[in-house]
Structures are given as structure tokens and as C-alpha cells.
């Protein structure tokens, strides 16, 4: 692959029903590109959790996915309220999602931890009242993380 492929999506923040549609599309494109199932699953789950987060917390945003020869990079950017305490937000089980979101099967405080679990690198840049950008990378042909998503990391 000579240069990175780029896919861009706008994530509609007013529609929980359609949340995840961009991740489904990325999954389809990665399949077409012939990547192995485990890599596709890791990329699409991490992006899906991120998309859900953007809809629940930030009224949507944009998703950009870059595919180059070494890795798949997912950049999720929103103009939501920002994350006051990233360490707290990264704790499994911590959530600020409202009850109506929990009733929909999310808001268990697993979103950000899942995104970290399924990717090789994750960086969160956040400014209160301005927004959050999450950058995730999944390395291609890299097996160190393949079991990462399968357990509670030894707990």
C-alpha cells in the first residue's frame, strides 16, 4: 500500500439508533482489503465503542480511519464537554452515562477501557467545554495483543 487509505465519517449525535454505522462500514472495508478477522474485530470494536461514546456524551463528531502498511489509525474527534478526569474515565465500571443509555445496553463504564484493550496505542486529548480527540492505533501483523480482548487481563 503506497499511501494511506483514508475513510471519513460524520457521526450523528442525535440518533442512538444509527450509532455504530460508521464502524460497520469500516469493518466492511477492512474485509474487502483482505485483513485477518482478528485485526478487523479489534479495529471495529474499538471504533464502535468510540462512536457510541461520541453519541452518548458529545452529540456526535467525526471519525477518520487511516490504513497504511503498518497500522490502522482511528481518530475520533468531538466538540463535546471534554473529560474532566481521564484516569477516572479509564477505570472499568466508572461511567457518567445517564440511565436511559444504560437501559440501551451501554454506559457500564467499559467504553474507554474496551477501546484501550483492543488497540495497541490510545491517546486521549481533551479540553473541557471544547471537546475530545481519541487517537487509536492497531498494528498490522502484530500479535502481541491478540489475547488482550479475551479476558479481564488476568483478573
Amino acid at each position: 500500500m503506497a499511501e494511506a487509505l483514508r475513510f471519513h465519517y460524520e457521526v450523528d449525535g442525535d440518533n442512538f439508533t444509527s450509532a455504530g454505522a460508521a464502524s460497520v462500514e469500516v469493518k466492511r472495508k477492512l474485509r474487502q482489503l483482505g485483513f485477518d478477522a482478528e485485526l478487523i474485530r479489534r479495529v471495529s470494536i474499538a471504533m464502535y465503542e468510540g462512536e457510541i461514546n461520541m453519541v452518548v456524551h458529545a452529540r456526535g463528531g467525526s471519525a477518520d480511519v487511516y490504513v497504511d502498511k503498518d497500522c490502522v489509525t482511528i481518530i475520533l474527534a468531538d466538540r463535546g464537554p471534554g473529560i474532566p478526569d481521564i484516569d477516572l474515565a479509564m477505570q472499568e465500571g466508572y461511567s457518567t452515562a445517564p440511565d436511559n443509555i444504560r437501559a440501551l445496553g451501554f454506559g457500564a463504564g467499559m467504553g474507554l477501557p474496551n477501546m484501550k484493550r483492543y488497540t495497541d496505542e490510545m491517546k486521549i486529548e481533551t479540553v473541557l467545554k471544547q471537546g475530545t480527540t481519541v487517537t487509536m492505533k492497531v498494528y498490522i501483523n502484530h500479535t502481541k495483543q491478540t489475547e488482550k480482548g479475551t479476558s479481564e487481563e488476568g483478573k
Partner: protein
Amino acid sequence: MKIREIATLLGADVLCGESQLDEEVQSACGSDMMSDVLAFVKDQGVLVTGLVNPQVIRTAMMMDMHCVVFVRSKRPTPEMLELAKEHHIAVLASCSRMYEACGKLYASGLGNEACANG
């Protein structure tokens, strides 16, 4: 276990995916919390849930699952069935409760051994 046997064991209606009833699945998980499914499930072909919204089908898609079983007489919307058909996921609906449905499937040999370290 074939998806067809799951339908029989649970007295479930097949709402879509009739052509997939002879597909073999090795394991299942039961949850109403999709984030937990995304966190802890690996290589499980069947999702048993009482939650009804399109994210259930999307979660199953993300996890490469072949079949979703709705319990407690819950019925998916036409929109959810369309999404499931598009992505080749069989959808069953049973009046069993979650505990009963999981118990019957487990006792009949559909284990959770694929859930590594889980």
C-alpha cells in the same frame, strides 16, 4: 450445536436466517449489557439477550456472531431484522427467561469454552 437445535431447545421462533439453521455454533453468551459482551466475549457464536434495540444486532456483528436469541418474549423491530439479514445473523425469539434459556443451552452442550480465561 446447530442453530436449528437451539431453536428447538428453546421453543423459539425463527425470525430470520432460515438458511443458516444448519450452521454449527460452539458457544454462547448471555447478557443485556452490550459493553460487557464487547469486553469479555471471544469467538462465541450466539448472543442470548433480553435487550431490544439495533445496537444488539450491531454488537453481534462486531463480534462476528452468527445468531441472536431474544428471550422473555422480546421481539426485535423490523429495522433490526433487516440489519440482521443484511449481515447474515439468524434471529430467534423465545419466551424463556434468560436464566432458563442459558441453562438449557449449557446443559445441552453449548458451553462457553471459547471464552478464553473468562
